[in-house]
């Protein structure tokens, strides 16, 4: 037989697939009784109805980095022309540049076909937050590079261009997550953009607080950060309250890795705020508060991805959410 005849050339040919077997649950010890399950809810053997997000760690990492880049781009523009805050403005410009450079690298790392990352800029599709985001990330990256090079002498276009792009980069990720079929993200779609935006301000301040600052700079950073942290906390509270309305979504947010990370994010954020409010003035206090805020912001983004995965795994979350929407 000629092996040539067996050569596969079709669209899906020549590919090896490793499909993870669905988790059948752990082994039950012999001495434990397992009650028969009586399920009143109807689904297909409890198998997932929608697909889990395929994104790896670099995507939530990018959410954080992009947030810092966006927040610093905005702050840099606000600080422009202030003589005694020049050093802080320079830090902000550097952060905006670093974020918009590292961010695309992280995103590219997640791509299945890394060699094709330029395809992101092949079309501009307004219906896709990811397409809008890719363009604004690329544009802001260019603008941030320009304003880093020009420094204090940067013109109006560069300054406001970077700031505007920064705002988009900081917030579009929230729209991106909300604009999906994932029940947890979809249920939170109006809160996510606010959460990402305020958390971007908080994480920018968090990074800046860990740098050597003088009194005046410290004050600016603290004020910017406090608004962000307060907003972040408010959004997190609002999310928990809205989750409570649909028990399955609330459960998905609390269970597993996502729940642990969410709790960690809450704890870090609250303790960051508390440390900030201590009536002591010392660089150490500032740095601890900055570090806690940073940890909180990173945990928050990983929590959102993990909770999204949990919500996708349980079919009843999707079904009950849609059923309750139909009844409304």
């Amino acid at each position, binding site marked *: 037989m000629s092996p040539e005849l067996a050569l596969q050339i079709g*669209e*899906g040919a020549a*590919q*090896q*697939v*490793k*499909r993870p*077997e669905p988790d059948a649950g752990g082994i039950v010890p012999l001495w434990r009784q397992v009650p028969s399950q009586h399920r009143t809810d*109807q*689904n297909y*053997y409890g*198998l*997932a*109805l*929608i*697909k889990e*997000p*395929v994104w790896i760690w670099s995507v939530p990492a990018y959410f954080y980095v992009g947030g810092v880049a966006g927040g610093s781009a*905005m*702050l840099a*523009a*606000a*600080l422009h*022309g*202030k*003589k*005694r*805050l020049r050093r802080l403005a320079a830090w902000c410009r550097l952060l905006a540049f670093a974020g918009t450079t590292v961010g695309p690298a992280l995103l590219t790392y*997640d*791509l*299945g*076909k890394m060699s*094709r990352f330029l*395809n*992101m800029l092949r079309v501009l599709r307004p*219906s*896709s937050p990811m*397409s809008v985001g890719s363009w604004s990330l690329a544009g802001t990256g260019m603008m941030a590079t320009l304003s880093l090079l020009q420094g204090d002498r940067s013109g109006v276009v560069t300054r406001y261009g970077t*700031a505007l792009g920064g*705002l988009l980069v900081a*917030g*579009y990720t929230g*729209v*991106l997550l909300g*604009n999906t*079929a994932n029940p947890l993200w979809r249920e939170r*779609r*109006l809160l*996510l*953009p606010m959460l990402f*935006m305020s958390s971007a*301000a908080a994480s920018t301040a968090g990074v800046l607080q860990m740098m050597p600052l003088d009194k005046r700079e410290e004050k600016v950073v603290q*004020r*910017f950060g406090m*608004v962000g942290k307060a*907003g972040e906390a408010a959004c997190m509270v609002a999310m928990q309250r809205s989750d409570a309305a649909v028990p399955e979504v609330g459960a998905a947010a609390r269970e597993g890795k996502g729940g642990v990370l969410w709790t960690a994010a809450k704890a870090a954020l609250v303790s960051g705020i508390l440390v900030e409010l201590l009536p002591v003035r010392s660089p150490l206090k500032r740095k601890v508060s900055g570090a806690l805020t940073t940890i909180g912001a990173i945990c928050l983004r990983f929590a959102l991805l993990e909770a999204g995965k949990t919500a996708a795994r349980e*079919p009843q979350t999707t*079904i009950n959410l*849609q059923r309750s929407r*139909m009844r409304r």
Partner: protein
Amino acid sequence: MTTPATGFFTDTSVCIGCKACEVACKQWNQLPADGDFFSGRSYDNTIHLEATTWRHVAFIERQQRLSGQSTSRPFSWLLMSDVCKHCERAGCLEACPTGAIVRTEFDTVYVQPDVCNGCGYCVVCCPFGVINRREDDGRAWKCTLCYDRQKEGIEPACAKTCPTDSITFGKLDDLKEIALARLQELHRRGVTEAWLYGMGGRDQPGTEGLHAFFLLLDRPEAYNLPPDPYVPTKGVAGAWGVMALAAAGMAAAALAAAHGRGGDRK
């Protein structure tokens, strides 16, 4: 000349669960096997639609009779061959940032494998959980509605091989007529639970109708179909509005922080 829209009508009431469609699809599209795996869930070892499984037969064993069924024991088989729905408004297509997912001249949704860069956004935007990214290959794959065969004027492999014509391929308008006739026939015979899933935009506003629609004998969730699928992009304007508000908030915070007391005046 415009080509009329084509699609599938899957009549689950005549499906016998032979899985010929699964095999024909795998063979025609040369999709890799998924390996030996025993699910323990009825006769369904394929579990779900996947990047490498573009047709999937669901097996539902129920301890209840269908209306009009006269067996001695309360038992009924529900079988359904599932496939990509090729939505009128497709979540994957609207989410794709590279333009890799396009609508063909047959009004079907097609992923161009040479453009897809594997960002994975279509995976979370499909309300049916159809499309997925392959681990080895890094690209997203799903049913093409046998675009290559349609180009030559022949019907898709699954419909061609289906021995009971549970899978009917044709022009969408013709399919709707066939589906309605079949529905009336079943209702006349007393199978009152038969209904059409996603035939038009009125039945399923979230997707504005499917190009691969189904005649079901139970609620959609029994078949692992969402009861009220919703293409995410349909409601994205509100989120952008909220983002704009939040952006204004952040700008105000930055300006206030920079210009407030203790800061520096020009």
